[in-house]
């Protein structure tokens, strides 16, 4: 007796999805035959709202695009605005930005690890990664005064310089985090049930990933060595010595592995950027109205390639500001990852994709 197929709404309010989005899944028994993500529950009309605010007022709003890694969006907006105004941040501000961006990348990956912990059912992973993330939140709070939405970059530089002996604190935190990362990794890498839940699940090879527009750690896990910090270097990433972490499997374990290695690479970058930051001014006075024209800039967000396209008509308000969120496209490419796997694999696949609905719906 062929069991007919059942549509299940892993709906907007569901314990497994982080943020408001709905995954309609067609089940045949336990295996998934069709999947359709539905978004739009958190659409705030960010791009329309931004069109009646001045350039300097949008800076804190750009933080609120994705609360997981707010600094990378703040920085992307300021970088695009600098291209539009035709100005450039001073040398020291660039080094500060790179160091703080990499700190934010580690924090964002730890937030992702917290989500993976709850989805796979082990609350120890969750609480331990929150505890490690607390180290970095204190650092960034000491620097900018806020814990999540930092509002730290400005058009033409950064808000304030490092507080005194900040570099000593950062190095001390990174050494401590090195030890704790080893504990975290052994909590998962040598944990057979974790490997049973993640190896060989949600497979996607490089070619289809590239065609579907996937970017970021998910793409690098499928064996495509694409990292915008190396491909199209911005700020001072050219002379930062770090390696790109890739994996060839393309399954959930590979994505987890890539992100854990990326955390180690980010630590190297932070140390190098902190050491080499020259002295000098940290901010340039930006004019009020940019020349007419448009500017585009894309950076390596912890989730993938994030891009901003800005059109100005000479007044002090942007004419059009388009945001390309990496998660928007990764989510559109998720159905092929889900087909053929079981319903209890959905949290594993979706959890490791580091969803951030704020930037998807804008």
């Amino acid at each position, binding site marked *: 007796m062929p069991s007919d197929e059942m549509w299940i709404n892993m709906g907007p309010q569901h314990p497994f999805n982080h943020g408001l989005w709905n995954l309609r899944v067609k089940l045949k028994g336990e295996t998934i035959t069709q999947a359709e993500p539905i978004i739009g529950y958190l659409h705030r009309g960010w791009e329309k709202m931004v069109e009646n605010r001045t350039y*300097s*007022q*949008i*800076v*804190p*709003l750009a*933080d*609120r695009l994705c609360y997981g890694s707010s600094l990378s969006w703040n920085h992307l907006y300021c970088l695009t605005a600098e291209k539009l105004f035709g*100005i*450039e941040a*001073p040398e020291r501000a660039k080094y500060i930005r790179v160091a703080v961006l990499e700190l934010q990348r580690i924090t964002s990956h730890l937030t992702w690890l917290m989500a993976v912990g709850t989805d796979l059912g082990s609350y*120890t992973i969750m609480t*331990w990664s929150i*505890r490690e993330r*607390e180290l970095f939140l204190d650092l960034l*709070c*000491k620097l*900018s*005064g*806020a814990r999540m*939405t930092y*509002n730290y970059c*400005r058009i*033409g*530089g950064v*808000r*304030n310089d490092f*507080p005194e002996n900040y570099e000593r604190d950062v190095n001390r935190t990174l050494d401590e985090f090195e030890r704790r990362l080893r*504990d975290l990794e*052994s*909590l*998962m*890498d*040598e*944990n*057979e*049930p974790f*490997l049973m839940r993640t*190896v*060989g699940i949600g497979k996607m090879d490089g070619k289809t990933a590239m065609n579907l527009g996937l970017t970021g750690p998910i793409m690098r896990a499928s064996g495509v*060595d694409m990292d915008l910090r190396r491909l199209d270097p911005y700020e001072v990433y050219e002379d930062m010595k770090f*390696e*790109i*972490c*890739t*994996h*060839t499997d393309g399954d959930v*374990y*590979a994505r987890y*592995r890539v992100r854990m*290695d990326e955390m180690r*690479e980010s630590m190297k970058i932070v140390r190098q950027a902190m050491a080499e930051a020259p002295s*000098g*001014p*940290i*901010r*340039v*006075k930006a*004019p*009020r109205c940019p020349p007419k024209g448009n500017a585009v800039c894309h950076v390596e967000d912890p989730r993938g390639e994030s891009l901003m396209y800005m059109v100005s008509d000479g007044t002090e308000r942007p004419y059009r500001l388009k945001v390309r969120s990496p998660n928007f496209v990764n989510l559109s490419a998720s159905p092929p990852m889900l087909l053929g796997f079981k319903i209890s694999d959905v949290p594993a696949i979706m959890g490791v994709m580091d969803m951030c609905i704020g930037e998807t719906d804008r």
Partner: protein
Amino acid sequence: MRIEERRYTKADHFRATGYVLKTMKVTFKGAIRATKNRPCTILYPWEKLLYPDNFRGRPGIVLERCIGCARCAKECPNQCIEMVTIELPDKGKVKRPQVNLGRCMMCGNCAEACPTNAMIVTPEFELCSYSRGGLIFDPVKLQHPHKAGYEVNYSFALLSEMNAGGEIKTYAKNDNSVHDTIVLDGAKCISCSRCAKTCPTGAIEMVETGEVNPKTKKPIKQPKFDNTKCVVCEQCVDVCPKSALSVKEVL
């Protein structure tokens, strides 16, 4: 150039990896550490986290320094600051900012834009109240004991000097020698002296310009700007009926 990826060879299902023993060793070590010295969580209402001085809680105000220039109201992304007339003992009826904390996102832009550091960023974040009205802080309620760490000062360099190369000087936020200036377009000015009345810092004074108004035989007066007092609040630019004033940015 790539990290050699540690290939996880998926051997037979049941292998002697200790299956879950290594993880149990790590968690047990964590448990011992948590019982020996206190766990890392704090009991919130009784113990509180230590916040740095520059922690951005709700905005606060130092009424003595405030000159009512409304730059914070113009700069706020959520438009939650309004100028409200209050009765000050020494200055009489003046306009001071009133912040609607229900809308405020604590971005600290108002403290950054304030030329006299009257608006400060206080570390206070416990703001629950029984009604939405309770969150609208009028200037008196907005006050907060002042500490040096709460002010938001930044130093900036000028674009022209950056491009010119050579030694780059950095200027403080409210450095009077370097800021935008107001420019008067003489033809449009009808010398109604409205800008002189609205200027909060008294930086504008009407000065005879020598010509005489043929009809009323009185000397024509036009505003002159004293740059050391001006804080570029653009109230004069907005109030001028003939929009004769405009801002010339220093770059």
